């Protein structure tokens, strides 16, 4: 059995997207620019662990998920899965063993399902393309099993339905069933509940949590919602402009955040308080800058309420503030 720590590791992972410079730029010999969507992150996920990746839009959280699922090619850095370097593996047949172990769930289930395929075809697709089953009987059994595990009962009723004939919650369950069908070891879930009605969200979360309990499946849960991350995850990693600013246990990040950005995120999150008191903390000013123009030094310094001169010059390293809790801030101790 491989070491737990070496399940999935990201080492200095970078995903940059080049910006097509105009003719003008090329004539003047300006260096090509790039959107630094993910700008060097180190993260490991243990076997059977739920890690939440929290960030705003433009933080690069979706790109991290796409890099792990090989939908985006890393510019540099390494993606190690069970000690195997997957960063440069390309092509659908070479990736087949990896796809078998790492699957993905998408934010908008309606978009993620081909409108012209039936539920059966959708869930059977990974089994067929990864050549995991032989014969129609086995295929039908695996599809039924996956649909049932995702909470669509009885599975046979859904086989010939089309995505538009399902409710929002059912559609997301079909996406989950498709990912489950191959019995992966890691699922990357990109905002899987943000498009769903509040009363349906908890149902889907329950399905995901049950998977871990039953099959020891690891989950990378990408979200913008800190309380949701706290509810579902063992650890939370907070991403700002392509860099991890803080990682720690869910409780540590929620109740004892060290990085000013995490603090701001927590304070900005609307909360239900049974005594209806409002804390009324000052909201953070400004907005996330473009990833094509990353500020020098600590990338949060232009918006940081406690920034000082050093933050403008030097990028802070990840500093251990408690056991298994690091924050990338010069003030973190």
């Amino acid at each position, binding site marked *: 059995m491989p070491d737990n720590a070496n399940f999935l590791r990201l080492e200095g992972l970078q995903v940059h997207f080049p910006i097509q410079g105009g003719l003008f730029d090329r004539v003047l010999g300006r260096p090509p620019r790039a959107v630094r969507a993910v700008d060097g992150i180190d993260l490991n996920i243990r076997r059977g662990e739920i890690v939440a990746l929290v960030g*705003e*839009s433009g933080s690069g959280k979706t790109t991290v998920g796409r890099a792990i699922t090989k939908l985006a090619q890393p510019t540099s850095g390494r993606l190690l899965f069970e000690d195997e370097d997957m960063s440069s593996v390309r092509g659908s047949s070479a990736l087949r063993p990896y796809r078998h172990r790492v699957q993905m769930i998408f934010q908008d289930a309606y978009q993620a399902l081909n409108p012209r395929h039936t539920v059966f075809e959708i869930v059977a697709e990974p089994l067929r393309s990864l050549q995991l089953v032989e014969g129609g009987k086995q295929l039908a059994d695996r599809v039924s099993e996956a649909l049932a595990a995702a909470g669509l009962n009885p599975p046979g009723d859904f086989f010939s339905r089309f995505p538009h004939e399902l*409710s*929002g*919650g*059912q559609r997301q369950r079909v996406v989950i069933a498709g990912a489950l069908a191959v019995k992966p070891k890691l699922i990357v879930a990109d905002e899987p509940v943000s498009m769903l*009605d*509040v*009363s*349906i*969200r*908890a*149902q889907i*979360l*329950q399905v995901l*949590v049950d998977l871990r309990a039953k099959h020891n499946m690891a989950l990378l849960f990408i979200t*913008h*919602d*800190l*309380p*949701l991350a*706290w*509810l*579902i995850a063992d650890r939370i990693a907070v991403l700002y402009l392509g860099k991890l600013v803080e990682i720690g246990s869910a409780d540590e990040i*929620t*109740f004892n955040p060290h990085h000013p950005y995490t603090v*701001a*995120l927590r*304070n*900005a*999150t*609307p*909360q*239900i*308080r*049974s*005594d*209806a008191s*409002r804390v009324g903390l000052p*909201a*953070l*000013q400004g*907005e*996330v800058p473009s990833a094509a123009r990353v500020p020098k030094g600590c990338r949060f310094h232009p918006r940081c309420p406690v920034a000082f001169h050093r933050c403008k010059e030097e990028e802070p390293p990840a500093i251990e503030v408690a056991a298994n809790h690091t924050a990338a801030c010069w003030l973190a101790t």
Partner: protein
Amino acid sequence: MINSSQDNAPLLEVDRLSVDYGLKGVSSRAIDRVSFALRAGEAVGLVGESGSGKTTTAMAIAGLLSPNARVSGGEVRYRGKRLPIDDDAAMRPHRWSETSVVFQGAMNALNPVHRIIKQIAEPCVLKLGMSRVEATARARELLELVGIPADRGAAYPHELSGGMRQRVMIAMALACRPSIVIGDEPTTALDVITQAQILKLLGDLRSQLNLALILITHDLSVVAEACDRVMIMYSGRLVEDGTVAEIFGKPKHPYTRLLIDSIPNPANGKKVIRHIPGDPPSLVNRPSGCAFHPRCPSAMGVCQTEVPSLTGVGRGRVACHLHRFLQEDKVAAHA
């Protein structure tokens, strides 16, 4: 329930309002006898899931119902006078100057080829009969009011961030000095920190201009931050109405309680995922009786047959048979 003293008369009264949608000859009821009152300067959250009728209610009040919708009963009164909400032409003078709307997708609501200052000045020219110069001055004033430096008015919509665009939408909504602003999921597409900024702006504007605010949202925690009162809708009906403290402290309707429980809340420290079984009903096959009964943990026989009426409990109102019985028991115990 509603304070009837002269100076505190309701600004807006919605009285047993029903709206039907006609689709391919089949008509389905989107909202069913919705009644409530709104006072000047009050912030009310209208909360519900998709298909609950929250948006239809708000659009009916603003007189912006889609062509296939029909007001099938009830009325809406503004300062005691009936609003012609189903007559597009007659409604025109009331729109924007009495009730205005801040829509969700700011990018779709703004014209990409015009500078924002021009788009804000437009309603001032058309509605208030201002000259171009006056209108531009007013638009600059409005931009400052929503926290955008007036010089940024020369920008085009695509040059602004999502939060800025939403501010522009708010400025446009305020152009004709309305007394009611309806926010249709105004922060749903925004990031958490931007959402907090916009909610704070709305709160500030409300106290500054004595605006009444109707905030339509699916997110109870947003309401908890920004409103005084909450109305919960389910399948086209109002199921509970009360102050933020009452609803979140002591929810009465089982749906409200389950909804609150299903929102993760680190403050209470309990990491339990509680879910409501089943799916929200669609408009065409609404369950009989109380529409929530198939999903309700405390449903009784009567819930399947009789629609519970919205009755006053304490300072709020609730539509649940359970509470009617509790009340009757109380009365019996007193006697």
